[in-house]
């Protein structure tokens, strides 16, 4: 028995050591970022040669733990950038959920001429890389007078082929009986959709909302070209701007990076279930 157990134990130890080593590799930049955001630049460089780089500063080493955060908010309009990002992403989510769920429902439930043609067109648009149309899209938005407006940021990305596809797949599996019953009760199609279908479809709405939030919170190219005024910058563009603003203070930039990560972190902590569902869904359906 003992001879059998020893290799198994060895194996387990090796496994734990490997996994811990990998965990260190994946975590140390994040830990360094957060810890450095609490320190002055002199201390950041002094601590770098030892384990202290990954530890919070001693109370006697700093004037106040959040000095960098206060300075970052003072030097650039971080609050405005975050507000802009929230308006941009939440705007796309609200309009996107309405428009795309309606389209997905139409493609799943109704018979109408050219239905399969439109479905094919929508799926085909999935393979157009957004990077290849940003210039003509910019010219269009410019001609509409939408440069440096929320309209210009939001409207082009409301309709989303991937979201339509997810909604359609969900509604195809949705039991018809409820709708039939409502129809007999004299409910209109629009009433049926908004009063019966939508409230019973929370998981797919949550999944699409989270996928849209993550994609657009991280967006870079479109906000970069269409929102170049400081008052319209999103957080990602604002970070790039701050990074290049002399004098470059590492601690302050680290503070801004940490702040920019908080919304995504909250999403993952509280809504991970829906997010993983969405991932699994995309993985298996394709």
């Amino acid at each position, binding site marked *: 028995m003992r001879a059998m157990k020893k290799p198994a134990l060895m194996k387990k130890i090796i496994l734990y050591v490997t996994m811990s080593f990998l965990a260190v590799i*994946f975590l140390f930049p994040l830990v360094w970022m957060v810890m450095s955001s609490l320190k002055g630049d002199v201390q950041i460089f002094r601590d770098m040669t030892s384990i202290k*780089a990954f530890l919070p500063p001693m109370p006697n080493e700093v004037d106040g733990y959040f000095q960098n955060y206060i300075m970052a908010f003072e030097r650039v309009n971080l609050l405005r950038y975050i507000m802009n990002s929230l308006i941009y992403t939440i705007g796309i989510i609200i309009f996107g959920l309405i428009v795309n769920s309606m389209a997905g429902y*139409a493609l799943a439930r109704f018979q109408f001429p050219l239905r399969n043609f439109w479905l094919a067109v929508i799926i085909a648009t999935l393979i157009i890389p957004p990077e290849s*149309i940003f*210039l*003509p899209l910019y*010219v*269009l938005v410019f001609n509409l007078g939408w440069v440096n407006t929320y309209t210009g940021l939001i409207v082009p990305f409301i309709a989303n082929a991937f979201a339509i596809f997810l909604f359609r797949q969900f509604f195809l599996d949705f039991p018809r009986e409820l709708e039939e019953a409502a129809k007999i009760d004299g409910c209109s199609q629009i009433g049926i959709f908004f009063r019966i279908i939508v409230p019973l479809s929370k998981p797919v709405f949550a999944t699409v909302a989270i996928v849209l939030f993550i994609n657009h919170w991280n967006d870079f190219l479109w906000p970069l070209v269409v929102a170049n005024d400081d008052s319209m910058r999103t957080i990602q563009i604002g970070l790039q701007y701050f990074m290049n603003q002399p004098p470059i203070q590492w601690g302050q930039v680290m503070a801004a990076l940490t702040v920019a*990560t908080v919304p995504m972190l909250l999403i993952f902590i509280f809504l991970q279930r829906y997010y993983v569902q969405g991932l699994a869904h995309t*993985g298996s359906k394709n």
Partner: protein
Amino acid sequence: MVTRKRYSLKTREGKEALTGYFFLLPALLLLGVFLLYPMGAAFYYSFTDFYILRPGEKNFIGLENFQMIIGDAEFRQALRNTLYFTFLVVPIQIAVALGLALLVNKKLKLKVFFRTAYFSPVVMSLVVVSILWTFMYNPNEGLINEMLGLLGIPPQPFLTSPDQAMNSIIVMSVWQGAGFQMMIFLAGLQNIPDHLYEAADIDGANTFHKFLHVTLPGLKNISLFIFITITIAAFKLLVQPMIMTQGGPLGSTKSLVYHIYEVGFNYRDVGYASAMAVVFTVMVLTITIIQRILVKEERG
């Protein structure tokens, strides 16, 4: 005719068609105006000398832009860089993601902690990660050189060297992205039925054989999906070089999308940039189609 049309809208089928279009139309209009129209416009601009500062003048110049691409050394370099990045990132990231998924799929007490740790870089945006790693890669007082120093390795130039800059970006990109595909692989691993492994056990298969004959075939569809998405995402490389190196040093990290952005947006040469965007799109479509065909052959 008019009466028949009216009549047809009053039938059940007619009403259903009308409702269907009512639900579908907003999305169709938006996709048409903000996706299909720009696509067509990019194609049209690519045959003109459209320059943003002269919006009134768009002259048809035939294939001149495309001929210019062939002789454009910067375009060739950007294409080479993009292909280099793609060919390295795709296999490395898939291997790392699969390895991590296999590790966290083991029945261990701390597996939730490990899974969260490997996934955590995904929570940060590419911009945040790029800025953070620019500091870490700093050749004079960066964290990575300090750590290498403790191991007795001399300081490296990283992003400041044409030989190391792209590789440095690749390492960071794998670090940032692998956790995402790990989660997808993990979902796939958990879908492989246990009885397949039990049957393999009875046949006396060792761990490696089980991996080869049970795990890999079970992950086939998911692997192909991941392969396609990573390849296309890698081909669109932009944020990392834009933030970390501005395409340098000596253009060694300038990517295709970055080059298109500079020509179209900084130099305002929309005609030429559109021609390059068309070439870029054709490349992405070709990758997609080739991979789809491979998928079909595998399945057929």
